[in-house]
């Protein structure tokens, strides 16, 4: 029942709407009856596409995909409750392929992240990170999501929220590759990775998204984010020391060329060294305002060069081994 009347038009900025990819919806439609909105081509306004009494079918999604539509918007005002509930339902649904579950988690996580980013309360941010890390670790720990699937699912737009989700996913994989098996430890690591750039909340968007090189003052402002993130989180007093070090030291480099302190080698916490490898990899394979994403094989070469001096060599070697299975298809 496509809607055309103005009464069904809704603002895209509405906090009750969650953008969900068509691929995620394929995993959701069997058990989720919600109102779905679609973006109008010309006006970009959102109009009702299907109401809950007329649920969308797989064939509808096929048609939308063929037309090039990538996203529909799901109304949270629905009786299915909050997106957290939906994410829980999806993560527990064993009938769904694991990579589909992860894709939904990624979509919903991005929205949750985006919402709390503008929230002045850090509590909301940390609460979101905890919930997301728990689900993420659950999926990855059980081995439900295989590495190749996960790497294929990462989004490459380098928005702060997507970047943080990507770094958390890569950090979990790398930690497992390095032999960390304890689910509690992995979850704790995922929380630290999700929060690693939390200090960027204080950096104005015009600097974060500046397409050209930064001047000295702007660089200083950006380089403050590990310190401001650490201060904000330590004032709350809930983080473990390894998590705090992921936030404070993820831009430190083994040769002392990093910031904020310029510590070297073992002076950098192992979790921060791990986060640095994931962070650099995710930054290289994403579009940034001033640089196009690099193909995986090229990113790995750069990572290799950096490992010579500034990144943890053993961790880079491990990350290369993890990604190796996927590299042939990407290097073509």
């Amino acid at each position, binding site marked *: 029942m496509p809607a055309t009347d103005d009464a069904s038009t809704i603002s895209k900025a509405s906090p009750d709407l969650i953008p969900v990819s068509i691929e995620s919806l394929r995993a959701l439609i069997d058990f989720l009856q919600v109102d779905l909105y679609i973006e109008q081509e010309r006006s970009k306004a959102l109009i009702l596409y299907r109401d809950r009494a007329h649920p969308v079918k797989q064939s509808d999604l096929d048609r939308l995909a063929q037309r090039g539509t990538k996203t529909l918007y799901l109304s949270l005002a629905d009786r299915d409750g909050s997106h957290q509930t939906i994410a829980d339902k999806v993560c527990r649904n064993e009938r769904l392929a694991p990579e589909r579950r992860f894709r939904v988690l990624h979509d919903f996580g991005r929205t949750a992240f985006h919402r709390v980013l503008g929230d002045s309360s850090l509590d909301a941010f940390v609460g979101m990170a905890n919930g997301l890390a728990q689900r993420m670790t659950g999926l990855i720990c059980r081995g439900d999501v295989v590495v190749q699937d996960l790497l294929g699912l990462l989004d490459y737009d380098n928005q702060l929220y997507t970047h943080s989700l990507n770094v958390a996913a890569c950090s979990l994989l790398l930690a497992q590759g390095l032999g960390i098996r304890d689910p509690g430890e992995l979850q704790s690591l995922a929380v630290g990775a999700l929060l690693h750039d939390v200090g960027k909340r204080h950096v104005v968007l015009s600097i974060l998204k500046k397409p050209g090189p930064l001047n000295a003052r702007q660089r200083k402002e950006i380089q403050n984010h590990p*310190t401001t993130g*650490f201060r904000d989180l*330590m*004032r709350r007093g809930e983080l473990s020391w390894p998590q705090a070090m992921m936030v404070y030291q993820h831009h430190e480099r083994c040769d002392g060329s990093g910031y904020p*302190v310029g510590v070297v080698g073992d002076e950098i916490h192992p979790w921060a060294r791990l986060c640095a490898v994931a962070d650099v990899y995710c930054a290289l394979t994403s579009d940034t305002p001033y640089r196009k994403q690099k193909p995986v094989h090229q990113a790995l070469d750069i990572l290799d060069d950096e490992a010579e001096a500034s990144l943890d060599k053993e961790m880079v070697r491990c990350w290369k081994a993890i990604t190796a299975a996927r590299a042939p298809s990407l290097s073509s």
Partner: protein
Amino acid sequence: MLEGDHGGPGAVLELVKRLRCEIKLPRSMADYFQDVDAVGAIVEDKRRFARRTLHSLGALEHRPTFAALPRTVEWHKIYTKDVSRGGLAFLHSCQLFPLERMRMLLPDPAFQAVLPPTCQCVVEVARCQRLAPNCFEIGATFVERLAS
């Protein structure tokens, strides 16, 4: 060793001098204490309080601030670098983290201009920069002046 009444800043300074020093100055700073021309010079006046160079000795008492970061309670010798009414910069042998709060003794009479009538205070770490192995420059703010 540094607790209690020691008979004024002069006596405290003697005690501070006797603390073992773990700071290793890089070669470029070898004449740190001979750099007399720099003493008292205003190094920055764009801040809220003007900073003046003051290369002298002090003592810092490590104490735990964060539950997650254990610190053995003990005194360490530090080298002061510059000072303003709001805080100071000093050299230390190890890394300190933002928000860490520690007791400090600054017995050099030159500090009387900013810490009257005491040579004891509590500082909060604002920033830390590694200059060399066992040599970190730390910026801290005064959060409390303590009675001697």
